[in-house]
């Protein structure tokens, strides 16, 4: 598609429950990025993929967070045993070119608002 699609739009989980978020990048884009936005203005990079391979996972909390991008499937971000501080909007972005390329542009999806109660 021409836009990054994210589902669900909203997700409510009780503390300790699992949460799974999905992202379909723009067709033809090889790079996918996940960000966590808390308090409206702070973006935290989590992980990125080049096709199905992890490109950069320096921001990923490894204990409870995992992510995959499998061929012919939406990418996913999973949080095991959610905590209150995981409440945030999770954005997925895709790009055709890698971050070091001069033509690099990220296109963001509408986000998934996760509320942990």
């Amino acid at each position, binding site marked *: 598609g021409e836009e990054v699609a994210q589902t669900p739009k909203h997700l409510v989980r009780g503390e300790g429950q699992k949460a799974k978020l999905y992202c379909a990048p723009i067709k033809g884009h090889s790079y996918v990025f996940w960000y966590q936005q808390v308090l409206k203005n*702070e973006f935290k990079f989590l992980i990125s993929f080049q096709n199905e391979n992890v490109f*950069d996972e320096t921001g990923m909390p490894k204990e409870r967070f995992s992510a995959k991008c499998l061929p012919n499937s939406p990418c996913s971000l999973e949080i095991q045993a959610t905590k209150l501080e995981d409440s945030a909007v999770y954005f997925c972005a895709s790009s055709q070119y890698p971050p070091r390329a*001069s033509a690099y542009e990220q296109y963001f999806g*509408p986000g998934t608002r996760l509320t942990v109660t």
Partner: protein
Amino acid sequence: GQQVMQIPQYQHVQEGEDFTTYCNSSTTLSNIQWYKQRPGGHPVFLIQLVKSGEVKKQKRLTFQFGEAKKNSSLHITATQTTDVGTYFCAGRQASGGSYIPTFGRGTSLIVHP
């Protein structure tokens, strides 16, 4: 690690006034990007600056990249209510570190009609 500071955090202006947001990095950047996020929306890519001292214009928006490639600014001339939103810069380190740009905390622009 790399830090990208953005000021001011908020800016209230009357419609028709100018607006500027500033972005400063603790390290030299290879490039810097600017995004706009409307309230309740998602970030939308505006522009990427790559060259030292580069200036680019998009209608009423002027983007500058500092000579030392450690700072950048976005200036909006004669703001309109449609300019309301949060403007983020995102800079990528010139050497070492992650390839992924680091986002500033954004400047929220409020335009009063």
